[in-house]
């Protein structure tokens, strides 16, 4: 007898090659800039060359005289629409909110802030004309560093934010933590700077807006990870029009990494201009515009203290962070250094007392918001650096300190005391052990000792991380005062058409994650239909149910589970219909391998295609049953998921130059069950290299006047193939109890695990020289200076 549990999944767990790829490898994808509409106008922007200035005059006459120029608009023209919303404020505290307008009005507050838009018949003319718009500025003093910005007498960005403070926020138990430090045998303290990064998806951002005057409806193509959210924010908050008057479409997206979650001014000004001129309007950023005006990530300046006993027990963690949020608040900016950072600073360790204080600060820089990992890399870097610092202080093996303080398997679900829902599941030691085994830990320490006698500086760094995925349950994020104030559920509709083909629409928004493939694997297995018969549709608010989009490693855990819920409903209805067709009792029907049959009599089965046909033709349905197999689910997870793992890196430092050679990189990740191991591995690889890049290469640098010195890819170093290491991967599997798929999320894990792994290795290599800490990025010069004791 066949039962559901006997059936081996045919697709789930297989490394299937991606169904997304045939288009993309042949150049047949449709990215935003590939969209051309009849009579479409092109936008070029006039952007502020100053970090802080009053706009005293804008003269567009020369530009308007250029042949091919249709219009020039400024912020004054667009006062009939509202500033962009900040949709996630720091919880339970006052936030002094200031958000950008479609175009600057009166004052500019960062270099690259758009001041005027030129619309022309082609992009070359638009670009020429932008240079012909004469803007007069009265420069104001600027401030770019968060610590400088809160000092008395610093330049003030906004009238409602004294001392440039957005908010002050805290998590944990301050008194208990202070007591732990007062009693501690050992205290280590370091300044920890998590430098500003530029996300740099290979496709920049852009918008194409069309307005139909007859219906009053907008259609907007956007490089967005969350088109339903953009529809909501742009209609309800910016334009004050019914949500039904805007259709948002995300075409193929050339990477996002967080930067494409947010509501941007180009969405507003292209819509406004399309309505004004009655012609479609396209805006696509150039890379240098993306660097100056789209969101950046990280930029924390932290004082970290960790205390413990000489036996290696960690007893307390105290953290004070200044988070630079830029000149205005981006869509979810205040949520990143608070909810997604301060609540997980203790990482994989059972630390009895912890406290985190965060000050959000305005500066004359580009807005800072979520970038791959978003708060969790900052937390993970902080705790893992401090644990190594503690291990060195007490002379204990860093692997042993970790093992000693890990949250133990029997402690799950684990409450960390920082205002998070409990960690769902975890077993941290096996991942550490596996990584140590892969690297050959004991042998390495012997080789290291020998290398040191030869004057060579080799080091090994360990990073044991945990993160928060599946953002976010209403039970957490929706709590009054936590910030967003609503559950970030995800949606899925599943339809089985009368030909037996299955169409799934999802509110998730794949942009490289391989979700079409992964989702189709789940659907094909659950319904027992051929994989090729499953179609996954996404990206268009017309035709997909409302969903919150793709970010925060949430699309499989939340979006995938929404699909699973709909599939369960489909199967339940199919069983009821099959019972009717087989003249049996519905309770006796089993659904397996794409067929419904009376338990024990599989030979009399009805296939899903037969059931779907019956449901569609609809002339013999059970009493009260609606036609068609069509089910929708909105999944609000009861908890987040908490993927974890251990990464180990080995470096050799050239003491003459300070150059770091990352010789091995080992990643053991536990993201729960794997639906498509090939896709998961790809996510891990990419994440790791972004984390390594933070450790070794990347840093957005402003000068004191607020000019972005790393304003192009000539200066801002994202890794090439030759700068990235070969990566050795493995997994432990601890299924999540939170969702029926047992999955945890993998999109950000690599980034969250990597930076401290590399930094710990460098500091281990230089330990004989007395180096205890170093800030990122560990550029050759910085390492060289550490070696030469000039830090």
């Amino acid at each position, binding site marked *: 007898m066949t039962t559901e549990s006997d059936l081996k999944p045919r697709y789930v767990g297989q490394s299937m090659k991606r169904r997304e790829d045939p288009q993309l490898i042949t*150049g047949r994808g449709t990215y935003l800039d*590939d969209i051309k509409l009849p009579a479409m106008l092109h936008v070029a922007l006039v952007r502020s060359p100053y970090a802080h200035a009053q706009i005293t005059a804008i003269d567009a006459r020369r530009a308007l005289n250029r042949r091919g120029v249709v219009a020039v608009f400024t912020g004054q023209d667009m006062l009939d629409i509202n500033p962009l919303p900040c949709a996630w404020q720091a919880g339970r505290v006052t936030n002094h909110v200031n958000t950008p307008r479609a175009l600057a009005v009166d004052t500019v507050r960062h270099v690259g802030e758009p001041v005027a838009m030129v619309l022309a018949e082609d992009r070359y003319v638009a670009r020429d004309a932008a240079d012909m718009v004469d803007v007069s500025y009265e420069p104001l003093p600027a401030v770019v560093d968060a610590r400088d910005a809160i000092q008395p007498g610093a330049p003030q960005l906004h009238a409602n934010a004294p001392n440039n403070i957005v908010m002050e926020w805290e998590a944990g138990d301050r008194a208990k933590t202070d007591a732990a430090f007062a009693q501690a045998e050992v205290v280590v303290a370091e300044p920890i700077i998590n430098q500003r990064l530029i996300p740099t998806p*290979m496709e920049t951002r852009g918008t194409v807006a069309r307005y139909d005057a007859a219906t009053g409806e907008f259609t907007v193509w956007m490089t967005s990870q969350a088109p339903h959210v953009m529809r909501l924010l742009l209609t309800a908050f910016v334009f004050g029009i019914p949500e039904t008057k805007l259709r948002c479409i995300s075409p193929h997206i050339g990477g996002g990494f967080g930067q494409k979650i947010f509501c941007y001014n180009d969405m507003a000004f292209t819509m406004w201009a399309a309505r004004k001129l009655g012609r479609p309007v396209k805006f696509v950023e150039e890379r240098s515009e993306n660097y100056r005006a789209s969101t950046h990530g990280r930029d924390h300046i932290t004082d970290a203290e960790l205390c413990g006993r000489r036996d290696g027990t960690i007893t307390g963690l105290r953290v004070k962070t200044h988070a630079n949020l830029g000149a205005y608040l981006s869509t979810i900016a205040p949520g990143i250094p608070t909810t997604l950072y301060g609540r997980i600073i203790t990482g994989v360790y059972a630390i009895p007392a912890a406290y985190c204080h965060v000050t959000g600060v305005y500066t004359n820089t580009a807005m800072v918001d979520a970038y791959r990992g978003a708060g969790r890399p900052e937390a993970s870097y902080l705790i893992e650096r401090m644990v190594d610092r503690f291990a060195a202080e007490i002379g204990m093996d860093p692997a042993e300190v970790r093992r000693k303080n890990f949250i133990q398997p029997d402690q799950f679900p684990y409450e960390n005391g920082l205002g998070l829902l409990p960690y769902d599941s975890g077993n941290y030691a096996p991942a550490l052990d596996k990584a140590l085994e892969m690297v050959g830990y004991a042998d390495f320490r012997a080789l290291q000792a020998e290398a040191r006698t030869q004057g060579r500086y080799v080091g090994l760094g360990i990073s044991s991380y945990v993160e928060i995925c599946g953002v976010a349950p209403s039970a957490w994020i929706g709590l009054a005062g936590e910030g967003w104030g609503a559950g970030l559920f995800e949606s899925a509709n599943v339809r089985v058409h009368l030909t037996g083909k299955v169409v799934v629409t999802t509110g998730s928004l794949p942009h490289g994650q391989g979700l079409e493939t992964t989702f189709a694997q789940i659907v094909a297995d659950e319904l027992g239909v051929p994989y090729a018969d499953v179609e996954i549709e996404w990206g268009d608010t017309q035709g997909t149910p409302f969903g919150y989009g793709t970010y925060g490693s949430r699309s499989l855990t939340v979006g995938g589970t929404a699909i699973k819920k709909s599939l369960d409903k489909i199967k339940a209805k199919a069983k009821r219909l099959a019972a009717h067709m087989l003249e049996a009792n519905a309770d006796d029907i089993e659904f397996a391998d794409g067929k419904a049959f009376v338990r024990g009599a599989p030979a009399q089965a009805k296939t899903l295609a037969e059931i779907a046909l019956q449901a569609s033709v609809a002339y013999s349905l059970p009493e009260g049953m609606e036609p068609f197999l069509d089910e929708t689910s909105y999944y609000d997870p009861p908890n987040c998921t908490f993927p974890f793992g251990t990464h180990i890196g080995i470096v050799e430092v050239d003491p003459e130059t300070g150059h770091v050679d990352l010789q091995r990189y080992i990643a053991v990740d536990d993201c729960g069950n794997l639906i498509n191991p*090939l896709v998961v591995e790809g996510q891990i690889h990419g994440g*790791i290299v972004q984390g390594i890049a933070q450790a070794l290469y990347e840093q957005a640098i402003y000068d004191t006047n607020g000019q972005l010195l790393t304003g192009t890819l000539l200066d801002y170093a994202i890794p090439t193939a030759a700068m990235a290491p070969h990566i050795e991967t493995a997994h432990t599997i601890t299924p999540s109890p939170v969702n029926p798929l047992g999955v945890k999320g993998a999109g950000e894990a690599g980034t969250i695990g990597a930076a401290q792994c590399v930094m710990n290795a460098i500091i281990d290599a230089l330990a004989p020289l007395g180096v205890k800490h170093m800030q990122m990025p560990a550029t050759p010069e910085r390492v060289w200076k550490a070696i030469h004791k000039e830090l």
Partner: protein
Amino acid sequence: MTKITLTVNGTRYTRDVEPRTLLVHFLREQLNLTGTHIGCDTSQCGACVVHLNGVSVKSCTTLAVQCDGAEITTIEGLAPEGTLHPLQEAFWELHGLQCGYCTPGMIMSAADLLAKNPHPTPSEIRHGLEGNLCRCTGYENIVRAVSSAAEKMGSPDA
């Protein structure tokens, strides 16, 4: 305006262009060959790589007028319609792409790399692709894909 005649993916075109027209804009805007992408404004990223008279070039750093009389191959013309080049197959097979934005340029560069060095080591592949940035894959599977394609292209039954 300057009249140019060139062959793109085997088809001959004659067009009037402004001398300042970049090849990438000519291909994308005038010929609707949008598989060639733009990812930067400083000639770093390689999303725009095409073949000009058989060698890879950054079409964002080439003027269309410079291509008068030339033969251009873009990602759309790398393999005959309905077939895949071994590199395209290998990128698909080994998950050498995620968002796909860098992929056309990456594949065009890899094709030139293999033309110059048919049996590259992983290190040679990494250095050979220095003109192409990918932000998704961490390059691991790109290197695997190029190695695999090189093996297939070098085998007697290829």
